[in-house]
């Protein structure tokens, strides 16, 4: 007689889904090989990590003494291979891609597993539009789409909500949310502009993106630049873009920030916000800063969530359907 959990050894993905995964991996390698990209591998464990208010890396202790397994230097499981790949760019390799695992604490749901697969690439010389062109070409191939739409973050908000995300006040955001019967967290009374933008994006804008064919949303609010450069116009926008299919975000790209002093300032600001929310601070110094001081070539980079691509291809409603073993079976 089986005990209750004796079936948990089984994969949650069907054999067909796993075959699709293998086919997509082959397709990706062909796509980048045809365009002269070098496939690279970089460490999953690093001394450095992205400093972001909303990205929580998993810490790993490198046990120095087997009798005290929790004592030793701390390293981070990468939330993306971004830092290491930019170091390779700075070292003079102009076109690189990688298919790797990434880890993000506390992210689990229908579209999230704390361990997931990222496809990430960088091409020196690309600006925002060349970066979007390359992403559109890849999305077209993987998803079998004849064309990929593009829409600015600002236009998307104005179409779906009638508010300007770059200039409207917090009160106008609150009114727009109430007019659309959005269920508001009580803690929204103390929310920042970016928290309002995120809530409205999730509840009112994202569901409409990429409905008939894939769509790239671009030119994000400057406050959400992350590692993208900000285009100095009025109002300023971050040269950042995301790919959507049926309301699901599949990829995130940046026309990359090159100035190490700006990155340092963003790291400090992100750590201050983390501290204000009771989150641990993350290392502000990194070898990426050293690479940027040495000279990172102008480039655009994109991270594509492979598991979500598979969800879009197979029509899966939950990420479990495309993973052999999600976290609870790992």
């Amino acid at each position, binding site marked *: 007689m*089986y005990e*209750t959990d004796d079936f948990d050894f089984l994969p949650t993905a069907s054999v067909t889904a796993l075959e699709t995964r293998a086919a997509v991996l082959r397709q990706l390698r062909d796509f980048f090989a045809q365009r002269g990209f070098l496939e690279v591998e970089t460490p999953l464990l690093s001394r450095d990590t992205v400093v*972001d208010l909303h990205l929580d890396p998993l810490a790993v202790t490198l046990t120095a003494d087997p009798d005290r397994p929790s004592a030793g230097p701390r390293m981070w499981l990468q939330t993306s291979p971004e830092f290491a790949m930019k170091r390779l760019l700075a070292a003079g390799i102009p076109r690189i891609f990688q298919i790797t695992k990434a880890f993000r604490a*506390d992210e689990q749901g229908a*579209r999230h597993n704390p361990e997931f697969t990222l496809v990430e690439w960088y091409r020196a010389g690309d600006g925002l539009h060349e970066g979007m062109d390359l992403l559109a070409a890849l999305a077209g191939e993987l998803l079998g789409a004849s064309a990929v739409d593009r829409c600015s973050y600002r236009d998307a908000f104005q179409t779906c909500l009638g508010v300007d995300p770059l200039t409207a006040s917090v009160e106008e955001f609150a009114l727009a949310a109430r007019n659309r019967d959005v269920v508001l967290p009580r803690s929204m009374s103390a929310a920042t502009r970016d928290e309002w933008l*995120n*809530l409205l994006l999730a509840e009112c804008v994202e569901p409409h993106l990429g409905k008939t064919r894939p769509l790239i949303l671009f030119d994000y609010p400057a406050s959400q630049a992350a590692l993208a450069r900000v285009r100095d116009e009025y109002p300023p926008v971050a040269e950042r873009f995301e790919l959507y299919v049926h309301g699901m975000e599949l990829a*995130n790209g940046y026309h990359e920030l090159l100035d190490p002093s700006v990155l340092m300032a963003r790291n400090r600001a992100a750590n201050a916000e983390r501290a204000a929310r009771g989150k641990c601070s993350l290392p502000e110094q990194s070898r990426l800063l050293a690479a940027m001081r040495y000279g990172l070539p102008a480039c655009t980079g994109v991270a594509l969530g492979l598991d979500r691509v598979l969800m879009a291809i197979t029509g899966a409603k939950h990420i479990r359907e495309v993973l052999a073993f999600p976290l609870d079976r790992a």
Partner: protein
Amino acid sequence: MATYKTSDFRKGLKVQIDGEPYLMIEMNFVKPGKGNALYKCKLRNLVRGTVLDRTYKGGDALEAADVQEIAAQYLYRQGETFVFMDNASYEQYELSSEQVGDYWKYLKEGLPCSMVLYNGNPITMSPPNHVELKVVECEPGAKGDTATNVTKPVKVETGAEFSGPAFLKEGNVIKIDTRTGEYVERVSN
């Protein structure tokens, strides 16, 4: 009072909102772009049965519900009332068919289950993840049809109907996953 942070949120959590106990019946984690996480929850009031939609931001917290969980077993049904017994105190507790919901399908005599008490009164119960039930009625399967992808309705001892493979016969004992209502395997002939 214990509190749950958003990172503890999951289906089945019992929380206290505005002084009343709620069961988290759905929890959707949403995280747009690289923004803050949102936890979209459906919560059922454990006393009144009403359902509440609530969204929480990452970092929000909820109080744990002031409820007591006990190990019990199902005894019998009397009309629209289901009678259970506390395994420790032998005290009997009654739940209405509304409080039992779809779980009536699994309630055979002696079934171990967990019950939730609020202010000493029973408000809800849940069966184990897997329950074994005897098939009492089904169409005979086509001869030689051992494929598991062909299904038919089978009626079990509790009076409920499930979908199972065509090879099942009356008298078979089958295992059902109570979380999904799906057939798992045949336990005995």
